[in-house]
């Protein structure tokens, strides 16, 4: 039994890698190539689902791949938060591939083999990050994720894409090398271990100053969590094709960031230690400021993907905030929001991509009246927006609820206010888009001009993907129990 | 007497050095250096006797050889470079 769990964990890493190899080898036969990705996605999801059952049964098996440095291993362990992350990633991989088939072919993108192969490698890195038993392992896969997604961001090869890629790589590698790595090494020097442990690994004899320094380094070093001022890479990466944006915003990259942050908060510092540090308070305010600021910036964006990107920055702030609150409700909210935001945001990006493919429109002001031509897409956009905002009947309402509870538990009234205000802003920058698409007239002044211009829904596979993720947003409102149980058992 | 000889040789060597510095042509300097060299040979021989170490003569002999070769070498260099400068630029 134990062996098979470890076998399954290994499969989480191996399946995407094999898929990548398979994709690379079958590059000349697109149907077979995408078939491999889809089958691998399904297989991976099945594996993760089985691991979900094991972890809920209390299994915490682990295994060590090798000893990289004396006393420092590359090890993996079954753990609820990691499985949560794996569930999101594996399910969304499948869906994203489905979506990509329509999008990439519809858009006539080049280098599709490279795209699918690197996507698979990114999923493998997510597996590594999710199952990592120590910071070193996490760090390694974190870097692999950065490097494997860079070519995806620069995919188009245009000047703009190269600039975006530069910002992406520069900020992510930069923060991880200059802050994350010294934080890890510092932790190693101070604590003598890097293995995640419930309640944290630091002894009582360590000065708060040193702990604060480490915390600050971690928070800023995990650049994928896009804590201001290191958020610039997310808007810059908008140049990538929409499926890549989905990968960045929902499936892998930003989720890897906040996941790492939660891991560090819970398993390196421990919520108790975190709560006692004065610097935590400051970081909370900084993050809260980021939440508001990003929302405000999002409102001013006319480009849909840019607006969604700033929305992500703001929503990531919620998750970071939840950890830094250092309360159990906050943690619960954070963990849930990782999932809820993933499904919501991926739907939004899928919709944005669908609109781009079908109507070649990227500016929000051009989308008035588009609802007649693309009713399904716009409906999906509406539901996903509800989830992001935190309104029923969408899954996001649960996570937002627990986050608010977290602020109350910590007695942070001001922060609660910030969260409420930000939710109002969410409404203001998200809901008008579908509403105007359905009810406003377009620029020519006539309702339903889109139909007349020959605009139809996106390709079938893309539409199917959108339907699936939208359904998930709704489903997670009505059946949050599995996720709730999983999140509950963290820490 | 030996000491006087050594001093005299040193004096002449200083004179040669003065001539080497004053020049004015490169040939004056080479001449001076040559004189300095041959006087060095003599000085080594004299000093050998002065200090009771006649084996220094070997050094004097070797030095005479080196001095001669180096002067010829330097002269060849200047003779060639002189005639080349007159010719067309390479």
């Amino acid at each position, binding site marked *: 039994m134990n062996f098979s769990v470890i076998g399954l964990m290994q499969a989480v890493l191996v399946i995407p890698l094999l898929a990548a190899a398979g994709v690379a080898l079958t590059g000349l036969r697109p149907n077979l190539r995408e078939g491999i990705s889809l089958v691998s996605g399904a297989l991976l999801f099945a594996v993760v689902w089985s691991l979900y059952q094991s972890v809920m049964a209390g299994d915490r098996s682990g295994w060590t791949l090798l000893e990289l440095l004396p006393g420092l291993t590359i090890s993996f362990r079954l753990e609820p938060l990691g499985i949560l992350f794996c569930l999101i990633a594996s399910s969304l991989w499948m869906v994203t591939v489905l979506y990509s088939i329509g999008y990439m072919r519809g858009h006539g993108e080049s280098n599709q083999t490279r795209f699918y192969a690197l996507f698979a490698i990114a999923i493998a890195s997510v597996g590594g990050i999710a199952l990592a038993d120590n910071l070193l392992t996490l760090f390694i896969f974190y870097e692999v994720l950065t490097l494997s997604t860079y070519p995806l961001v620069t995919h188009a090869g245009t000047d703009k894409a190269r600039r975006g890629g530069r910002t992406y790589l520069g900020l992510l590698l930069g923060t991880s090398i200059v802050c994350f790595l010294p934080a890890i090494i510092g932790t190693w020097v101070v604590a003598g271990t890097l293995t995640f442990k419930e309640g944290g690994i630091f002894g009582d004899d360590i000065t708060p100053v040193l702990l604060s320094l480490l915390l600050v380094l971690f928070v800023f070093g995990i650049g994928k969590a896009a804590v201001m001022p290191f958020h610039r890479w997310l808007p810059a990466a908008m140049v990538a094709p929409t499926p890549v944006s989905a990968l960045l915003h929902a499936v892998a990259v930003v989720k890897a960031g906040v996941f790492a942050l939660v891991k560090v908060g819970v398993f390196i510092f421990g919520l108790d230690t975190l709560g006692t540090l004065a610097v935590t308070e400051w970081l909370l305010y900084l993050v809260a400021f980021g939440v508001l600021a990003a929302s405000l910036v999002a409102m001013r964006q006319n480009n849909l993907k840019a607006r969604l990107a700033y929305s992500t920055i703001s929503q990531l702030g919620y998750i970071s905030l939840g950890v830094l609150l250092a309360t159990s409700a906050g943690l619960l909210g954070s963990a849930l929001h990782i999932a809820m935001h993933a499904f919501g945001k991926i739907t939004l990006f899928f919709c944005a991509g669908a609109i781009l493919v079908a109507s070649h429109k990227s500016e929000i002001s051009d989308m008035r009246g588009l609802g007649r031509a693309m009713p399904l897409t716009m409906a999906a956009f509406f539901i996903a927006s509800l989830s992001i905002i935190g309104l029923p009947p969408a899954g996001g309402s649960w996570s937002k609820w627990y986050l608010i509870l977290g602020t109350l538990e910590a007695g942070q009234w001001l922060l609660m206010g910030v969260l409420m205000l930000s939710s109002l802003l969410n409404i203001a920058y998200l809901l008008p888009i579908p509403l105007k698409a359905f009810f406003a007239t377009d620029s020519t002044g006539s309702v339903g001009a889109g139909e007349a211009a020959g605009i139809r829904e996106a390709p079938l596979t893309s539409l199917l993907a959108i339907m699936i993720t939208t359904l998930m947003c709704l489903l997670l409102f009505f059946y949050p129990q599995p996720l709730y149980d999983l999140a509950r058992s963290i820490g | 007497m030996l000491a006087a000889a050594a001093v005299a040789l040193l004096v002449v060597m200083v004179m040669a050095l003065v001539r080497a510095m004053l020049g004015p042509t490169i040939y004056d300097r080479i001449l001076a250096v040559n004189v300095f060299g041959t006087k060095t040979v003599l000085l080594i021989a004299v000093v050998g006797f002065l*200090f009771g*170490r006649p*084996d*220094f003569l070997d050094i004097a002999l070797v030095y005479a050889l080196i001095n001669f070769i180096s002067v010829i070498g330097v002269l060849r260099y200047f003779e060639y470079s002189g005639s080349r400068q007159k010719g067309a*630029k*390479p």
Partner: protein
Amino acid sequence: MLMELYNYWVVILLMMTGFYIVIVQGNLIKKLIGLNLFQTSVFIFYISVGKVAGGTAPIQSAGIDVYSNPLPHVLILTAIVVGISTTALALALVIRIRNAYGTVEEEELQKRDLQC
């Protein structure tokens, strides 16, 4: 003190002269002359360090008890050979530089490199 260590002063003077020539002269050959002076000053330093008070040249001879230390001489013999090899190589380089550039003046060389 000053006179006691006169050999050091001589060495330093020679050394600085050589170093100065290497730095200031733009002519590659003159630079080499400076370099040789610089090296030679060190040779002198070694030999003078090996001097034993009252000792004579370390060539064995009847009736003499006190010799200077012969080891520095041996070492410097090696160093001289090395120095000559260096000079020979450097001169060969200068000849090739002259063939390639048509000059042995540093400034000219830099000018001609910039031209192409």
